[in-house]
């Protein structure tokens, strides 16, 4: 029997997630915000075409919570000074990083599943009651898998950002700035470049929307590859720094 296997480390990371309130608090916050927004959109909009109705259920509202979850997954170890104990228990640092990326990808997908199913249920009910355009099951299922995929990728990305920056607050502020300032600004001034943004524009490509212009977003395969590329680069940088860092 060698070092802790990947499944062992994954189980440990998932157990960590289940044994604090962080994950549950983020699910609750994402759920509350998403439900409020969906309810307001449905009630305050006269009607929707099919595409607009579909877009009510896309992942924007929970994406930031998933990123924060991923960031806390690794930057939180530095914040709470548990990184030493974690590495003593799992000294193969690269394997530990992979386990965290996988665990928080899965956790992100679970968060998204809970939120998406809830807003689909509430939103569809409201649309029906308000006699507005509803979304069929196949379209809902289509939105759901895209949301889950984006969530898994963002959860993984969050871990890498958290591991690279190590300061939880700085990492969260950085992703907020990229999401709300950098990528939208870039979409206005350099739309062809902006498509490759990892937090907003590439995920929009996976969903199939471009809220910033009439241009087509990246097609979904390209968008997934772009996000995997960003994760790959950040993972490599994080792995390098994590392996070489002296924990004093």
């Amino acid at each position, binding site marked *: 029997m060698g070092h802790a296997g990947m499944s062992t480390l994954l189980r440990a990371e998932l157990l960590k997630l289940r044994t604090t309130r962080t994950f549950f608090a983020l699910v609750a916050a994402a759920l509350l915000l998403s439900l409020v927004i969906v309810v307001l959109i449905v009630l305050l909009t006269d009607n929707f075409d099919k595409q607009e109705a579909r877009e009510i259920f896309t992942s924007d509202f929970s994406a930031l919570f998933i990123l924060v979850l991923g960031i806390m997954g690794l930057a939180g170890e530095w914040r709470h000074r548990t990184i*030493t104990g974690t590495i003593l*228990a*799992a000294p*193969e640092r690269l394997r530990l990083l992979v386990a965290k990326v996988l665990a928080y990808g899965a956790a992100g997908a679970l968060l998204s599943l809970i939120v998406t199913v809830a807003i689909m249920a509430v939103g569809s009910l409201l649309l029906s009651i308000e006699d507005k355009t509803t979304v069929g099951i196949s379209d809902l299922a289509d939105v759901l898998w895209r949301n889950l995929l984006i969530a898994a990728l963002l959860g993984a990305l969050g871990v890498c950002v958290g591991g690279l920056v190590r300061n939880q607050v700085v990492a969260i502020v950085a992703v907020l700035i990229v999401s709300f300032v950098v990528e939208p600004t870039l979409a206005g001034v350099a739309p062809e470049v902006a498509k490759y943004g990892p937090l907003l524009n590439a995920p929009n490509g996976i969903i199939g929307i471009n809220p910033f212009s009439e241009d087509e977003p990246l097609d979904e395969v390209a968008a997934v590859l772009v996000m995997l590329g960003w994760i790959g680069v950040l993972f490599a940088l994080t792995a390098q720094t994590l392996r070489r860092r002296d*924990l004093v």
Partner: protein
Amino acid sequence: MAPVEIQDLTKRFGSVEAVKDLSFEIEPGRVTGFLGPNGAGKSTTLRALLGLVRPTAGSATFDGRHYEQLERPGTHVGAVLEDAAFHPGRSGRNHLRVLAVTGDHPQSRVEEVLGIVGLTDAADRPAKGYSMGMRQRLAIASALLGDPQVLILDEPTNGLDPPGIAWMRDLVRGQAGEGRAVLISSHLLAEVAQSVDDVVIIAKGRLRAQGTLERVLGGDEGASTEVRAGEIERLAQALEAAGHRYERAGEALLVLGVAPEQVGELAAAQRVALRYLAPRARSLEAAFLALTADEGAPAWGTPA
């Protein structure tokens, strides 16, 4: 192969040499005290041993293997480091459960170690509600989880009350009695002196003394003699002329490595009347200060 072997360990942080050419071993069934002033390099040495810090040169191994090479490291080494920390929102029991999963230890072991450290009743409380002593007990439980053959304890009595300190002393001796190798780093010299078999003293990253407690307390030469005399200066000169080393403590001399009989004969030859003559081992504090004087952290000022 020694359970713990430090061989020519050197660690530089930029231009600062924290540890230089440090070599020592610790043996199974014995408690070794690892001592040094603040900034001596103790923490760096322990972290290099545990794979948390990469040595610039040399090696630090367990049975010839680096920490990262150990299979199920928790079954080989248990460590309590000075900055042991826990997620504030996670209970003590869940902290140990996570470690048990990571280290592939049976979950039943969690309850065992909680019982050993006396935390069973508080195990389901989040760690943020733990006192310093309880956090220290949880750290010790974490170190014992894998039933390791080597225990590394950095300031293990931090936050423990006197009964807790006595408990720690019994635990440490008990673990060594069962054949484990125990390495304790502590500032509480009086406490260390009661617990250890061997001592390693470092200062400015270099080895200053190593050996059994008796040998280190007696100095390189072995046991020493305390003597008081009316003409202490004349006696001191005679000792110097005979090539003996001594330390002055007020009106007394501690003659290093010389038996009382020899000191008595020398005094008689010089016709120096003695008031007191007895063998004496130095306190660990005295030995520590003598070995690390001018080598450690900036000197303390004179108390007001």
